[in-house]
């Protein structure tokens, strides 16, 4: 099977994630879309690792997973904190940084 198909899937997943981040308002969904983008990148890493026949990409994928795990912890904590104080998980409601 041609390895480039994995790359196409990876690009597709990344695009879905990116569009999701831009168009969705719910913080949880935006968060999930970010995860989708990270994992699309992981898929590309692993695919390139396969194509090139070395393990560098696989190692990078592990790193990405670790970073993603940390990000989930911090991100979810922020979302919960915002939800508690504002009774809303919409990213558009939290727009006070401009002042």
């Amino acid at each position, binding site marked *: 099977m041609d390895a480039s198909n994995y790359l196409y899937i990876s690009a597709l997943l990344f695009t879905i994630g*990116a569009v999701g*981040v*831009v*168009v969705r*308002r719910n913080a949880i969904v*935006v968060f999930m879309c970010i995860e989708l983008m990270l994992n699309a990148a992981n898929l590309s890493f692993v695919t390139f690792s396969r194509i090139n026949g070395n393990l560098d990409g696989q190692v990078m994928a592990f790193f990405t997973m670790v970073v993603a795990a940390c990000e989930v912890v911090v991100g979810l904590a922020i979302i919960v904190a915002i939800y508690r104080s504002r009774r809303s998980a919409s*990213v*558009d409601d*939290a*727009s*006070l*940084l*401009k*002042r």
Partner: protein
Amino acid sequence: MTISTSLVYLIGLPFAGAAILLLGGRRTDKWGHLLATALSGSSFVVGVYHLIQMVNRPTEMRPISQKLFEWISVGSFNVDAGLLLDQLSICFVLLITGVGTLIHIYSIAYMSEDRDRRRFFAYLNLFIAAMLLLVLGDSYLSLYVGWEGVGLASYLLIGFWNQKPAYATASKKAFVMNRVGDMGLSLAIMIAFATMGTVSFAGVAEQAHHTSEAALTAMGIMLLVAAAGKSAQFPLQAWLGDAMAGPTPVSALIHAATMVTAGVYLITRSNFVFDAAPTAQLLVVIVGAITLIFGALIGTAKDDIKKALAASTMSQIGYMILATGLGPIGYAFAIMHLITHGFFKAGMFLGAGSVMHGMNDEVNMRKYGALRQFMPITFITFGIGYLAILGVPPFAGFYSKDMIIESAFNSGGMQAIFLGSLTLIGAAITAFYMTRVMILTFAGTKRWDEGVEPHESPWLMWFPMAVLAVGSVTSGYLLYHNKALYKWLSPLFEDHGEHEELLKPIVVSALALTMVAIGVSIAVYKYMRENIETVAPVDVSWITKFVRKDLMQDQFNEKFFMRPGQLLTKALVTTEDVVVDGSVRGVARMAIGSGSGLRGLQNGFVRSYAALILVGALTLIAAIWVVVS
């Protein structure tokens, strides 16, 4: 050339006085005037000491110099701050310190009621120091420092009573018009530096022979501009009349005897430049001739006694400038007239001050009259000055003014007759307006205001007047006898020997005395009557009106210099505002505009930031792709 170490005291003593009085403040109020007078007097003593030393040395050893310090040293250009006392400077040193000390004494009484008397004496000492630096400097640059110093002192003293706005304006006017002359002097120094590479008198005198006539002419004209500014000569004469706003001793010292003669000194000192530049010399003669008539005419229409004397000063300095323009034949006589004029004009100004002192500071001569009985000493001293300025023998002016008229007639060529006639006409007008002053002030009937009780001034005031009166009688003969001053100064000038005589001296004297007699008779005929108006009559001929307005000098300056100057300034301000400021403001406005435009992107919505990041990343990738492929 002899080296000396004591020249610096001449300047140092009065300068120390000015410093102590200005820095000491009110603490010195009680004795400040005495200190100032003593220091000015001790400077005079040092001057006399130097004169005696100088007379006892052989001619070629007479000039002495003192190097103070190395002033400017850039590459091959070196200027030392040095002093030079030669036969010419010593005349000025004695005049400045001698008349200056007498006027210090006079001012003790004259200014006794003024609560700022200490400041007045500080300025007087400052003036003496600056004027001495002017005549003792051994280079144009040192002279320039003194030149500016006397300008400053003159400004401070004209505006001494600057609580009156008109007086403050007068001092500003004098300062601004002097600046025009100062510009001429600085340009002359630059020309000397550019063409000869030196600014010392000795250096320029040496280089003058190898320098092109064009450069020397340019330098001469610039020196003439400088002289015209300081000496109130045409076309920079308009400030002197207004300068009478200052206290009368100031008018006597600065605006009659010393500072205004600095122009004559400058031209005489620069004789090597003018002798090699006939065009500049001719201009000097023309300026002198115009001013001597111009000043005399203004003098005929003034009712203010001080302004009449100021116009007379202008006219007399016109005589001196004219004499310096005649070249080696005239320098010594210009200096001679300068010295005698220093005596009699300072004496007359002090006399005018004495009259004002007794008349509650009234200056309008139409409100004087019959003061002869009430102020006998003032009348006699003023009268001696009057006879001296008229040129009646044996008073001082007879010798000095006749010598100038004589040299004008003997200067050769067609111009000689013309110049000689002008000086004779000037003498007649001088006789007219001075007789007018005498009659209006001392003769006729009382025309005083209510409550005025004229009285003779205290001895502190009449003593200096008496000394100056003695000088007005004797100085002329002493300087003329055996050609004393001429021989004394002649080593400094390149004289071409004897000049052919167009008119014999006796004829010139007879002509001059005839003209004086005519002037006096007209004045006596016109003013020796009972009913002098206390207000100047209004229905007079247009000529009188024209002369009363000072021959339109202020109007002329206003129309041709002040208004165009204002227009130019306004245009420059507008240009500066629109072009220079405009471009700077434009840059700022551009930054502000682009900032506020971009601020719209900073909306706080996380999703739009994310979209921007995405767009940016995509653009980057696209750019890389384009570059790589």
